């Protein structure tokens, strides 16, 4: 008998800043729409484990799309005529996420993004808080410098191998080898200059240090950061979260790519957050399968109120 994942993929046309993008997305599940944002230079495959988890998909309609230029979403037709290199900007990224959600007629979805997908959550909270019901910002902070550098797109350097190896150390050495190398592979498959161009957003155009205190707190924001993340350290997340009203922070013993580098550990960390989102949703409360509660806090370090720490 053939074995299939429950994930299905489609293309939707999304118009943003004057251009229409044929955009690939995958989805599975029923319930609260949850749109997942991939990290720089990669694509929605990073969420494949969560999309195959019945405890998640019985409560959430999980959707992961590939940004233009990434995965199976092609660049704009005239990309070869561009007079500047590819650079992701905060305004395009934010507008595209909103346009994608509208293209799918999603009603107040949850956004879960990691790395640059986590950082953009701050912009979404500042500019589009009415559009969403909750934000899950994985490996996010208000300023993550040092990554918009020439070696990541240079004709004398193998982009795939260099880019993938440059991010390999962002993962925990205790994450399973199989999944760390699968994550490496996603990076090795990125288009030329796309990782670097995304990092223009990540390291240059997304300096929110003077803005995050303006977030109203009406939209719940959950920050989750792994202790091996050297691009966005737990301290960088904590410093950001202290300025963001209504946020919760979880520091865990993982790395920068929690959904793909160690899906089992990520499930332990994210389940209490998802449970809370379900409980806070008046329309869908109790509709799906029960999500696991918080992991037994053996060895947990106590932190100030509203800051939860899980040692796994």
């Amino acid at each position, binding site marked *: 008998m053939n074995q299939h994942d429950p994930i299905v993929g489609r293309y939707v046309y999304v118009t943003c800043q004057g251009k229409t993008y044929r955009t690939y997305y995958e989805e599975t599940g029923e319930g609260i729409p949850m749109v997942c944002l991939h990290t720089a230079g990669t694509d929605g495959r990073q969420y494949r484990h969560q999309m195959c988890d019945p405890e998640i998909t019985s409560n959430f309609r999980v959707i992961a799309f590939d940004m233009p230029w990434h995965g199976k979403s092609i660049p704009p037709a005239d990309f070869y005529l561009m007079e500047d290199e590819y650079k992701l900007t905060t305004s395009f990224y934010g507008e595209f996420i909103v346009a994608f959600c509208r293209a799918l007629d999603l009603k107040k979805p949850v956004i879960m993004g990691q790395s640059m997908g986590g950082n953009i959550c701050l912009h979404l909270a500042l500019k589009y808080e009415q559009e969403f019901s909750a934000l899950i910002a994985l490996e996010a902070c208000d300023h993550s*410098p*040092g990554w918009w550098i020439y*070696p990541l797109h*240079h004709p*004398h*350097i*193998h982009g795939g*191998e*260099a880019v*993938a*190896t*440059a991010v*390999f*150390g*962002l993962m*925990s*050495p*205790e994450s399973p080898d199989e999944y760390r190398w699968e994550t490496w592979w996603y990076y090795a498959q990125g288009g030329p200059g796309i990782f670097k161009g995304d990092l223009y957003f990540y390291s240059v155009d997304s300096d929110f240090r003077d803005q995050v205190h303006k977030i109203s707190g009406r939209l719940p924001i959950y920050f989750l950061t792994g*202790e*091996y*993340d*050297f*691009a966005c*350290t737990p301290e960088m997340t904590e410093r950001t979260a202290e300025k963001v009203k209504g946020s919760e922070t979880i520091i865990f013993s993982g790395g920068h790519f929690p959904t793909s580098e160690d899906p089992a550990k990520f499930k332990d960390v994210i389940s209490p957050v998802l449970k809370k989102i379900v409980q806070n949703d008046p329309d869908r409360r109790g509709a799906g399968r029960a999500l696991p509660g918080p992991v037994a806090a053996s060895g947990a370090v106590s932190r100030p109120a509203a800051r939860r720490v899980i040692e796994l």
Partner: protein
Amino acid sequence: MSRYGSRKGFDLEWIERWARCVNEDRILPVIGRFFNNRFVLGVDETEFLIEVRGGKIARISEGLTPNDLGFDFALRAPSTAWAKFSQQIPPPMFNDIWAMAHPLHKQLTIDGNQLPFWQNMRALTRMLSLMRQV
């Protein structure tokens, strides 16, 4: 001993044991086929010149002389940083060469011509990770 293992001393004998681990590795000759460079491994004030041919270490020496005619690039860090890096399970921020070199952390400097560093990063990363087997 901490969760991350014990510290080690770094002398030429230790470098030799590491180089022998590198040369026994069966993956490096494949991913390092075109890795032909001479780089310096700096530990505190001591400089070890590492000569790589085809992903294997052909020669190691302690200290630089005029006859070396320089090197391609140098990775320099305090012995405390290398000790953390070479633990079986390195602690956060010390588990990777680029993590240590990243402008946010500055535990390691990359001097010289950085082009061959980036060109051979995959093989170099594996080569250095074998310090955890010494």
